[in-house]
């Protein structure tokens, strides 16, 4: 798994590449923690290159969402979620908790 961060004026684009499982999720969590510590609560996650994400990854997304939404200071939104990952997110009820976009521009422009 590789994680990339690009900071825009009103939001941050987090690009995840590869597989997120119990082994790699902590690294993803660190990226979010760092953003939250720096007061960046508006986050677009580009999921287009996520090959796999287990519940360990879902957990990281959920805790980031909780932190971002607190005091209405921000939000985590998901962009370009691949079908297999989306199916699993749906099973977990995460599609109700994360706004999704099917293109990055709309996601960045949302903030």
């Amino acid at each position: 798994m590789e994680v990339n961060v690009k900071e825009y004026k009103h939001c941050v684009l987090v690009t995840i590449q590869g597989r997120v499982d119990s082994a790699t999720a902590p690294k993803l969590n660190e990226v979010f923690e760092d953003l939250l510590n720096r007061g960046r609560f508006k986050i677009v996650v580009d999921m287009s290159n996520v090959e796999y994400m287990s519940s360990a990854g879902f957990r990281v997304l959920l805790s980031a969402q909780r932190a971002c939404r607190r005091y209405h200071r921000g939000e985590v939104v998901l962009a370009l979620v691949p079908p297999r990952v989306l199916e699993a997110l749906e099973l977990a009820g995460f599609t109700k908790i994360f706004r999704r976009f099917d293109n990055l521009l709309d996601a960045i422009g949302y903030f």
Partner: protein
Amino acid sequence: MSVGGDIFSLQRSWPARFDFLDEIRTFVGQAAERAGFSEQAVYAIQMATDEACSNVIEHAYRGESGNIEIRVDWDGLQLTITLQDTARYSFDMKKIAQPDVNAPLSKRKAGGLGIYLMKKLMDEVQYLPSPQGNTLILRKRKEKAV
């Protein structure tokens, strides 16, 4: 070769560590492909196995070293994945509360999705604890061809 036609059994063992999850998913994924499952079903089987192994490593071995032995059986109708550990800890699966996947964000628990997802992704999940170690059996039947 008729895809999914051959009956097979595969068995391998891995150290109970998160960094082997990738290999384990590849192993069961290749078996599921060989059995002729759809890409969607292959992903589901990989994910269920990953969730099961993650639980064994986290909750059964709890940092102690040990192995997970994985056996895959394809009988032409269903794929059976049997996970065997020699871990000290076990649990009562029936007592684990189902997560409320419809709860709003504020009411969502942090974890508790692994077993739920396993059950959703597979047709059958069976847990057999024992003092010598625990067995988890995951089964998925072949979807009908369209």
